[in-house]
């Protein structure tokens, strides 16, 4: 292990954090359990939730605390109650600790005090738990439906254990069941344009409330891509099969999800992964980061109107895709990660291929970066646009380059070293300006860091097996698995079950924490910049398909397609 990793994972450092929390809330804590190396579950009563969580997240001395995920589970077959766990992590290179603040909620009184007034980052988590399990957050500022489709009946909660995973109850689509968008700021009339519109076609519906050209507020309706993956994973698939559905959660960060899941199960089941497998996983994760960042930078150029940059970025990216195809058999769904290791080995000729491609990529990318960052159009269009302040980024628990561009010094590879990162040296680029340019620079630097990481990993790759044999994983063990996907921290929670299956699986993709911060970043910018700001958050591509623009002054509604918005954005570059 490298020295920096040793410092972060030091036992004494971890114990200091844990002991301080235990000391402070001595009389409120029911039980403390250390379920993995760096994870502690602390059980309290539900009334104490806001206090304990507020204390840890807003602690004056602990750097970069983060609400990593929140899980609701139906533990009635086990303990007769529902459970709720808020997972909070310490970051900023100050110690590798995850706190799981757990509480039980009985079926007769399925309410709990909402944490959102204290920490807005809990907003989406509590709405999701209300949708899928029926646990009601009291005091939540915005308890609208989040996840389930509009034609899903009230009072039916899919993640409860008495709901069969293939059931699909419907209800009539009427005026009352239409999605309740927020009222626009006063002084306007709204043209009601429901989810049915002849031109409306799908995932990610935004409403921009504008005054002239300036964005005043944003509302959205997402989760068109909710596919019930967690329920399928808990019922139909065995441990090893879940890796494959995890890869298909997202079209770009597939391996990151599969890796987070595999690590969660390995932590829960005490499966030790051979060193060579850890290195191979690291190399695959970095290759994924390369192609994802190149995609995003290319799109940013395209939105600005700088098509030469766009085409060049994609030309560089294609070589990474071909490399992935020769290493794993597919350009995107690598199918490499299984519980206990990886499925394919790096033979010598494959290693040489990787070395050749990344060497050429480094040269090509440096040329691209020089060319793009000296293009006045690009720089001027991105500077000062879509600023997200550090305070906002922390309030919403943002992750990834979106947060690192705003000054949050937080990277799961460094702060919770997993796979082979603890044996490697790398930097984490952080910029303070918080605008689109800062995020582009973060991504550009990360590409060069990734190339360096891959070189180190290939150099030091040890021999040995690539897969560990494991026979049985004990049931009802809980653990959290985490990776740094290209978009940010990716956290999966598992509770193992019986019969080679999971009991509970909770996926938290990185964009989940970033999206709610979008209105804050978009306020005050012009409509032409909307696409650029959304692209700099790097959401899963199709979330930005459709935007509705409501003019607060005239009350007129224009519907702009993605193409039209992009045109608007590109035209604005002419004035620069």
């Amino acid at each position: 292990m490298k020295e920096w990793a040793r410092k972060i994972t030091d036992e004494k450092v971890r114990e200091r954090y844990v002991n301080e929390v235990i000391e402070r809330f001595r009389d409120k804590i029911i039980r403390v359990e250390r379920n993995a190396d760096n994870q502690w579950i602390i059980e309290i009563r539900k009334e104490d939730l806001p206090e304990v969580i507020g204390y840890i997240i807003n602690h004056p001395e602990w750097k970069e605390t983060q609400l990593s995920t929140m899980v609701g589970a139906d533990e009635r077959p086990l303990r007769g109650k529902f459970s709720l766990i808020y997972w909070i992590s310490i970051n900023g290179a100050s110690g590798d600790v995850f706190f799981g603040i757990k509480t039980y909620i009985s079926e007769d009184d399925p309410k709990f005090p909402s944490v959102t007034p204290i920490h807005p980052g809990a907003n989406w988590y509590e709405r999701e738990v209300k949708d899928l399990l029926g646990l009601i957050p009291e005091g939540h500022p915005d308890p609208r439906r989040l996840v389930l489709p509009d034609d899903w009946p009230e009072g039916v909660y899919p993640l409860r254990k008495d709901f069969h995973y293939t059931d699909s109850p419907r209800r009539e689509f009427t005026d009352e069941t239409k999605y309740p968008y927020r009222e626009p700021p006063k002084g306007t009339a709204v043209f009601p344009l429901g989810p049915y519109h002849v031109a409306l076609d799908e995932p990610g519906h935004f409403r921009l409330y504008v005054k002239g050209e300036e964005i005043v507020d944003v509302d959205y309706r997402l989760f068109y891509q909710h596919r019930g993956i967690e329920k399928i994973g808990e019922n139909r698939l065995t441990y090893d099969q879940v890796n494959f559905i995890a890869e298909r959660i997202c079209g770009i960060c597939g391996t990151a999800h599969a890796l987070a899941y595999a690590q969660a199960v390995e932590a829960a089941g005490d499966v030790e992964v051979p060193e060579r497998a850890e290195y191979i996983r690291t190399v695959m994760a970095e290759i994924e980061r390369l192609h994802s960042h190149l995609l995003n930078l290319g799109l940013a150029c395209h939105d600005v109107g700088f098509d030469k940059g766009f085409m060049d970025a994609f030309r560089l990216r294609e070589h990474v895709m071909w490399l992935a195809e020769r290493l794993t058999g597919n350009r995107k769904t690598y199918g490499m990660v299984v519980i206990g290791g990886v499925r394919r080995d790096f033979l010598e000729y494959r290693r040489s291929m990787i070395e050749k491609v990344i060497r050429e990529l480094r040269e090509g990318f440096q040329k691209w970066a020089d060319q793009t960052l000296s293009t006045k159009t690009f720089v001027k269009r991105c500077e000062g646009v879509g600023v997200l302040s550090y305070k906002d980024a922390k309030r919403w628990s943002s992750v990834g380059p979106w947060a690192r561009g705003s000054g949050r010094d937080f990277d799961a590879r460094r702060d919770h070293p997993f796979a082979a990162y603890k044996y490697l040296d790398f930097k984490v680029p952080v910029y303070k300006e918080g605008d689109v340019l800062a995020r582009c620079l973060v991504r550009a630097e990360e590409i060069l860091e990734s190339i360096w990481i891959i070189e180190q990993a290939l150099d030091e790759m040890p021999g040995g097996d690539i897969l560990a044999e494991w026979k049985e994983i004990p049931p009802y063990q809980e653990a959290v698995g985490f990776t740094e996907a290209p978009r940010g921290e990716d956290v999966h929670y598992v509770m193992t079950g019986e019969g080679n299956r999971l009991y509970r699986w909770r996926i938290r993709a990185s964009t989940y924490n970033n999206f709610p911060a979008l209105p804050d970043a978009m306020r005050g910018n012009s409509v032409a910049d909307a696409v650029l700001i959304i692209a700099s958050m790097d959401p899963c591509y199709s979330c930005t398909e459709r935007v509705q623009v409501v003019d607060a002054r005239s009350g007129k509604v224009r519907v702009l397609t993605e193409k039209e918005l992009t045109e608007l954005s590109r035209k604005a570059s002419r004035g620069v």
Partner: protein
Amino acid sequence: MAVTLKYPFVKIEAPPEYRGVPHINPRLCIGCGACVNACPADALLRIDDYERGTRKIVLDVGRCIRCARCDEACPTGAIRMTRNFEVATLDRKDHVEVVELRLHRCPNCGNYTDYTERALEKALQILPEGLFDGDEIRKRAILCRNCRRKLTVDDAVEASREVVE
């Protein structure tokens, strides 16, 4: 400098490591169903007909996510990932491959067992020579479970009679 590949007007082959659509070699398949258990997307089905005494292993390439778990699981190497990717069609029936095998029939009672004749042959091939009494094994292996149990009980009764006498 032209970079565009001339595909589909020239023939192109995927790289040797590519995971294309799977294909079942019907001469090697023993109908064990290991691939059916392994498939995460349920693209493989095992359909038993105890009236006609057949087992069908059905592969639908349009449901396949090409993860290669079936390839990993198959004990005889019958189902293999090919490098074929040109499987677009207008008719979904073109995506279906069926292997129909005979279920083994118990010579004693005449009922169909839940394994195929080929699976039985394969199991006997795996059986190590000289470890067990080959003839006794073969006598029992061709019976169905119920008849086997009956035979064991009958043998035990016979043996106990000999002791008593």
